[in-house]
């Protein structure tokens, strides 16, 4: 029906016009909704940023061989003989000279000082073999030079260099009893490897008396079929008890624990804030209709209907929520998008990642704000519609 639509539009315009007359309650509700939206979008962008980093790390055509039952590199272990058996197993791609594309690696944790926090945190120091570079998609030396095999030298991932002190090329840094020279900074397509420090695996073995063994063997395989062949061969070998992972799957499973944790903590906080925001909205809207009770009654006396009065109140609440939501999103986007943070991942070392405030997340934030506006506006809207005109007209 045309009538009540125009009435609703007229009343809603009036409501919005009177918003600035009652800035207090409206501002409280709006900032509550903005805070909710900001935190909600923040949590989601943190989870999605972390996920993006982890999921970008693994490749389908790289196989990860870990000791059977290990879900992290840290608690896996092989002897050098076992590593050699894996190296020459079928299914692994070989280079022109017939050498398998394999990097047997050690994953060691050292302490570095966070630039912004000033406190010590775990950082991964990974020992690699020469084939290790090519096994990372997007590997690129960004500054300086690569470490020289056989020397106490390392290169730092870009993320690690940004987050931790003392990792500029040319600087010496002490981890435990050993001093290392930082020779360069590398990138690896924004993946989790950029949070690591890389050195020669044999140097790492001797630096911390790790023996001659390894923790993980990374191998280039010929897709899923190659990986299956490798797995079959290793399973049948009495000398080994290993699991063969697709690197891609390994990192996305690692991401799940942490993103689940972020969500488990973040979602209840968002829900609590949403409840707070709903009450602030209720309060603002009750204040709004109370402040204008006589105006509303006057309009009703002139012939405006009660349904338009209710709808206009609901629209006012939704508009308030929309303003708050957009504000919250703007703050989240300005403050957090691309913001670099690090968190302890399930590898027990810090993973550096960027918050990713995507349009998708902003839409979810605004949707949350709208839901708050609708829920917070329903009861005031009903009251606006039901209020007896004659009573409100008597009030001054």
């Amino acid at each position, binding site marked *: 029906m*045309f009538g009540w639509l125009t009435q609703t539009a007229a009343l809603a315009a*009036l409501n919005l016009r009177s918003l600035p007359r009652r800035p207090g309650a409206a501002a409280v509700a709006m900032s509550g909704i903005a805070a909710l939206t900001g935190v909600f979008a923040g949590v989601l962008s943190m989870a999605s940023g972390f996920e993006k980093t982890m999921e970008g790390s693994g490749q389908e055509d790289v196989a990860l061989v870990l000791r059977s039952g290990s879900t992290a590199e840290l608690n896996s272990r092989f002897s050098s003989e076992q590593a050699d058996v894996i190296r020459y197993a079928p299914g692994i791609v070989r280079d022109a000279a017939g050498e398998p594309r394999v990097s047997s690696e050690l994953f060691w944790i050292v302490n570095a000082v966070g630039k912004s926090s000033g406190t010590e945190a775990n950082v991964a120091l990974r020992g690699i073999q020469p084939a290790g570079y090519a096994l990372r998609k997007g590997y690129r030396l960004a500054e300086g030079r690569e470490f020289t095999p056989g020397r106490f030298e390392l290169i730092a991932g870009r993320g690690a260099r940004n987050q931790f002190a003392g990792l500029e090329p040319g600087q010496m840094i002490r981890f435990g009893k050993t001093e290392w020279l930082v020779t360069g900074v590398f990138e690896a397509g924004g993946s989790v490897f950029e949070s690591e420090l890389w050195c020669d695996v044999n140097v790492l073995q001797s630096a911390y008396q790790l023996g001659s063994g390894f923790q993980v063997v990374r191998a280039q395989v010929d897709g899923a079929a190659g990986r299956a062949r490798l797995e079959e061969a290793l399973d049948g070998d009495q000398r080994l008890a290993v699991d063969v992972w697709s690197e891609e799957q390994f990192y996305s499973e690692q991401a799940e624990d942490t993103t689940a944790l972020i969500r488990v903590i973040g979602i209840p906080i968002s829900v609590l804030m949403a409840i707070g925001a709903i009450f602030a909205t209720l309060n603002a809207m009750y204040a709004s209709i109370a402040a204008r009770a006589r105006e509303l009654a006057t309009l009703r006396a002139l*012939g*405006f209907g*009660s349904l338009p009065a209710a709808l206009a109140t609901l629209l006012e609440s939704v508009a308030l929520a929309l303003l708050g939501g957009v504000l919250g999103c703007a703050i989240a986007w300005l403050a957090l998008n691309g913001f670099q943070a690090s968190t302890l991942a399930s590898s027990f070392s810090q993973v550096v990642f960027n918050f990713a405030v995507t349009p998708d997340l902003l839409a979810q934030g605004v949707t949350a704000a709208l839901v708050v506006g609708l829920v917070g506006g329903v009861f005031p809207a009903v009251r606006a519609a039901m209020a007896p005109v004659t009573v409100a007209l008597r009030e001054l």
Partner: protein
Amino acid sequence: MATQLIQLTGVSKNYRKGRETVRVLDGISLGIDKGDFVGLMGPSGSGKTTLLNLLGGLDKPTEGLVEVDGRVISALSPGALAKWRSSNIGFIFQFYNLLPVLTAARNVALPLLLTSLPASRRKQHVNTALQLVGLTERASHYPRELSGGQEQRVAIARAIVSDPPILLCDEPTGDLDRSTADEIMDLLQRLNRDYGKTIVMVTHDPRAASFAHRVLHLDKGELGAPPEETPGAPGGTSP
């Protein structure tokens, strides 16, 4: 039979106050002719506003019938009643009840939003109404920029803009000084005399009441004879 524009038959109104029921109007029967100008007086709390609200379809009687122009409005649904009000009744309040966020012209235009008139015609009507109350040059002023008398004239323009046959005024001069009150009364008289509006006006002011064709007295919910001698300055201050 329906020669009278407004006809009340055995109208009573009860309010509940906690457990007890208060009878505010008690079996009122009353007829008002088209073109009449009726003053309604009585002590504070005697039910004058309640009676006016029943006439204007803002409230429904507990018992009895309210007929306007042959239609039993006390039987209409709230929605139908709202629509009926928009084309039949103009309300004028003691405290003007203008919307502070709207200019005079926009306040006057409010009742026209309930019609299907195009914007240009609405503007015409608003200008005519403002002209009639002598406030053309204040069209773009906000209520806070107007005096009490000017505000009441804007309210009167709003009441007449959609050309309803009936004006219901609840102490229209109650908040105004004497000379301003006289101006408002002149205006109401003109609307009655020259434009044929039927007016029912609640007032405490005998001077205002003297503009009416006849004055009804309400006391304890019943229409009665006027008091023996009306004192010069009535003391009632009921809103």
